[in-house]
Protein backbone atom coordinates (compact mmCIF):
# COMPACT_ATOMS: atom_id res chain seq x y z
CA UNK A 1 0.00 0.00 0.00
CA UNK A 2 2.74 2.45 1.01
CA UNK A 3 4.84 1.11 -1.83
CA UNK A 4 1.99 1.62 -4.28
CA UNK A 5 1.60 5.25 -3.18
CA UNK A 6 5.34 5.89 -3.52
CA UNK A 7 5.17 4.23 -6.90
CA UNK A 8 2.54 6.71 -8.05
CA UNK A 9 4.21 9.75 -6.53
CA UNK A 10 7.69 9.05 -7.88
CA UNK A 11 6.31 8.18 -11.29
CA UNK A 12 4.30 11.41 -11.38
CA UNK A 13 7.38 13.36 -10.28
CA UNK A 14 9.44 12.01 -13.16
CA UNK A 15 6.62 12.78 -15.58
CA UNK A 16 6.42 16.41 -14.45
CA UNK A 17 10.17 16.84 -14.84
CA UNK A 18 9.96 15.57 -18.41
CA UNK A 19 7.02 17.85 -19.09
CA UNK A 20 8.98 20.86 -17.81
CA UNK A 21 11.93 20.06 -20.03
CA UNK A 22 9.76 19.59 -23.10
CA UNK A 23 8.27 22.98 -22.31
CA UNK A 24 11.79 24.36 -22.09
CA UNK A 25 12.51 23.19 -25.61
CA UNK A 26 9.23 23.94 -27.33
CA UNK A 27 8.03 27.22 -25.88
CA UNK A 28 8.85 30.30 -27.95
CA UNK A 29 10.05 32.82 -25.42
CA UNK A 30 12.40 33.12 -22.42
CA UNK A 31 9.59 34.20 -20.11
CA UNK A 32 7.26 31.36 -21.00
CA UNK A 33 10.15 28.93 -20.63
CA UNK A 34 10.92 30.29 -17.16
CA UNK A 35 7.27 29.89 -16.29
CA UNK A 36 7.05 26.28 -17.44
CA UNK A 37 10.36 25.24 -15.96
CA UNK A 38 9.97 26.68 -12.48
CA UNK A 39 6.45 25.43 -11.96
CA UNK A 40 6.81 21.94 -13.41
CA UNK A 41 10.18 21.21 -11.88
CA UNK A 42 9.23 22.28 -8.38
CA UNK A 43 6.03 20.26 -8.49
CA UNK A 44 7.95 17.26 -9.77
CA UNK A 45 10.49 17.63 -6.98
CA UNK A 46 7.73 17.91 -4.39
CA UNK A 47 6.18 14.66 -5.63
CA UNK A 48 9.60 12.96 -5.59
CA UNK A 49 10.21 14.19 -2.05
CA UNK A 50 6.86 12.89 -0.83
CA UNK A 51 7.44 9.55 -2.52
CA UNK A 52 10.92 9.25 -1.03
CA UNK A 53 9.72 10.27 2.43
CA UNK A 54 7.24 7.39 2.34
CA UNK A 55 10.10 5.01 1.56
CA UNK A 56 12.41 6.25 4.34
CA UNK A 57 10.24 7.31 7.26
CA UNK A 58 13.01 8.28 9.73
CA UNK A 59 12.38 11.78 11.16
CA UNK A 60 15.82 13.24 10.38
CA UNK A 61 15.62 12.12 6.77
CA UNK A 62 12.08 13.42 6.33
CA UNK A 63 13.19 16.75 7.79
CA UNK A 64 16.12 16.90 5.39
CA UNK A 65 13.86 16.09 2.44
CA UNK A 66 11.42 18.83 3.40
CA UNK A 67 14.26 21.30 3.81
CA UNK A 68 15.59 20.38 0.36
CA UNK A 69 12.20 20.94 -1.22
CA UNK A 70 11.61 24.28 0.52
CA UNK A 71 15.10 25.47 -0.39
CA UNK A 72 14.62 24.55 -4.04
CA UNK A 73 11.20 26.27 -4.08
CA UNK A 74 12.56 29.52 -2.72
CA UNK A 75 15.76 29.44 -4.74
CA UNK A 76 13.95 28.65 -8.01
CA UNK A 77 11.46 31.42 -7.45
CA UNK A 78 14.18 33.96 -6.69
CA UNK A 79 16.33 32.79 -9.62
CA UNK A 80 13.43 32.94 -12.05
CA UNK A 81 12.66 36.47 -10.90
CA UNK A 82 16.31 37.52 -11.25
CA UNK A 83 16.68 36.00 -14.72
CA UNK A 84 13.44 37.56 -15.96
CA UNK A 85 14.37 40.98 -14.60
CA UNK A 86 17.80 40.76 -16.20
CA UNK A 87 16.24 39.83 -19.54
CA UNK A 88 13.90 42.83 -19.32
CA UNK A 89 16.85 45.11 -18.64
CA UNK A 90 18.71 43.70 -21.63
CA UNK A 91 15.69 44.33 -23.82
CA UNK A 92 15.28 47.90 -22.57
CA UNK A 93 18.84 48.83 -23.52
CA UNK A 94 19.38 50.31 -27.03
Amino acid at each position, binding site marked *: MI*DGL*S*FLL*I*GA*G*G*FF*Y*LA*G*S*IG*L*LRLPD*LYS*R*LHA*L*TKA*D*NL*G*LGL*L*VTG*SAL*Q*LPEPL*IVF*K*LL*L*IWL*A*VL*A*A*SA*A*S*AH*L*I*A*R*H*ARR*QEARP
Partner: protein
Amino acid sequence: MNELIALAALALMLSLLLGLMRVLRGPSAGDRMLATQLIGTAGVGTLLLLSLLLDQPALLDVALILALLAAVAAAAFTGQRQEARHD
Protein backbone atom coordinates in the same frame (compact mmCIF):
# COMPACT_ATOMS: atom_id res chain seq x y z
CA MET B 1 10.21 -0.60 -6.44
CA ASN B 2 13.87 -0.29 -7.35
CA GLU B 3 13.01 -0.65 -11.01
CA LEU B 4 10.63 2.27 -10.86
CA ILE B 5 13.18 4.43 -9.05
CA ALA B 6 15.77 3.59 -11.70
CA LEU B 7 13.27 4.45 -14.43
CA ALA B 8 12.41 7.73 -12.75
CA ALA B 9 16.13 8.55 -12.48
CA LEU B 10 16.39 7.81 -16.18
CA ALA B 11 13.48 10.16 -16.87
CA LEU B 12 15.22 12.89 -14.89
CA MET B 13 18.46 12.35 -16.78
CA LEU B 14 16.52 12.57 -20.04
CA SER B 15 15.01 15.87 -18.95
CA LEU B 16 18.52 17.02 -18.05
CA LEU B 17 19.66 16.17 -21.57
CA LEU B 18 16.75 18.11 -23.04
CA GLY B 19 17.79 21.04 -20.88
CA LEU B 20 21.30 20.56 -22.24
CA MET B 21 20.01 21.23 -25.72
CA ARG B 22 18.66 24.53 -24.48
CA VAL B 23 21.99 25.35 -22.82
CA LEU B 24 23.86 24.72 -26.04
CA ARG B 25 21.32 26.32 -28.35
CA GLY B 26 19.61 29.03 -26.30
CA PRO B 27 19.91 32.31 -28.16
CA SER B 28 20.29 34.53 -25.13
CA ALA B 29 22.39 34.18 -22.00
CA GLY B 30 19.18 34.10 -19.97
CA ASP B 31 18.18 30.91 -21.74
CA ARG B 32 21.48 29.32 -20.80
CA MET B 33 21.13 30.44 -17.21
CA LEU B 34 17.63 29.03 -17.14
CA ALA B 35 18.80 25.70 -18.43
CA THR B 36 21.49 25.65 -15.74
CA GLN B 37 18.71 26.05 -13.18
CA LEU B 38 17.03 23.04 -14.75
CA ILE B 39 20.22 21.04 -14.45
CA GLY B 40 20.40 22.07 -10.80
CA THR B 41 16.83 21.01 -10.00
CA ALA B 42 17.09 17.80 -12.03
CA GLY B 43 20.36 17.14 -10.21
CA VAL B 44 18.65 17.49 -6.84
CA GLY B 45 15.91 15.08 -7.93
CA THR B 46 18.45 12.63 -9.32
CA LEU B 47 20.47 12.71 -6.12
CA LEU B 48 17.31 11.98 -4.14
CA LEU B 49 16.55 8.95 -6.29
CA LEU B 50 20.17 7.78 -6.28
CA SER B 51 20.28 7.95 -2.49
CA LEU B 52 17.25 5.62 -2.45
CA LEU B 53 18.64 3.34 -5.12
CA LEU B 54 22.24 3.05 -3.94
CA ASP B 55 21.32 3.21 -0.22
CA GLN B 56 23.55 6.21 0.48
CA PRO B 57 21.89 8.70 2.84
CA ALA B 58 24.90 11.00 2.42
CA LEU B 59 23.65 11.90 -1.06
CA LEU B 60 20.79 13.77 0.61
CA ASP B 61 23.39 16.15 2.04
CA VAL B 62 24.75 16.70 -1.46
CA ALA B 63 21.22 17.44 -2.67
CA LEU B 64 20.79 19.91 0.20
CA ILE B 65 23.95 21.79 -0.72
CA LEU B 66 22.93 21.91 -4.39
CA ALA B 67 19.50 23.21 -3.44
CA LEU B 68 20.90 25.93 -1.18
CA LEU B 69 23.50 27.13 -3.66
CA ALA B 70 21.24 27.07 -6.72
CA ALA B 71 20.39 30.73 -6.43
CA VAL B 72 23.99 31.90 -6.04
CA ALA B 73 24.84 31.28 -9.67
CA ALA B 74 21.77 33.13 -10.93
CA ALA B 75 22.51 36.03 -8.59
CA ALA B 76 26.12 36.24 -9.74
CA PHE B 77 25.01 36.20 -13.34
CA THR B 78 22.41 38.95 -12.99
CA GLY B 79 24.01 41.12 -10.33
CA GLN B 80 24.41 44.78 -11.08
CA ARG B 81 27.66 46.43 -10.11
CA GLN B 82 27.77 49.46 -7.85
CA GLU B 83 28.81 51.70 -10.71
CA ALA B 84 25.68 50.75 -12.61
CA ARG B 85 24.04 53.33 -10.35
CA HIS B 86 26.34 56.03 -11.65
CA ASP B 87 25.46 55.46 -15.32
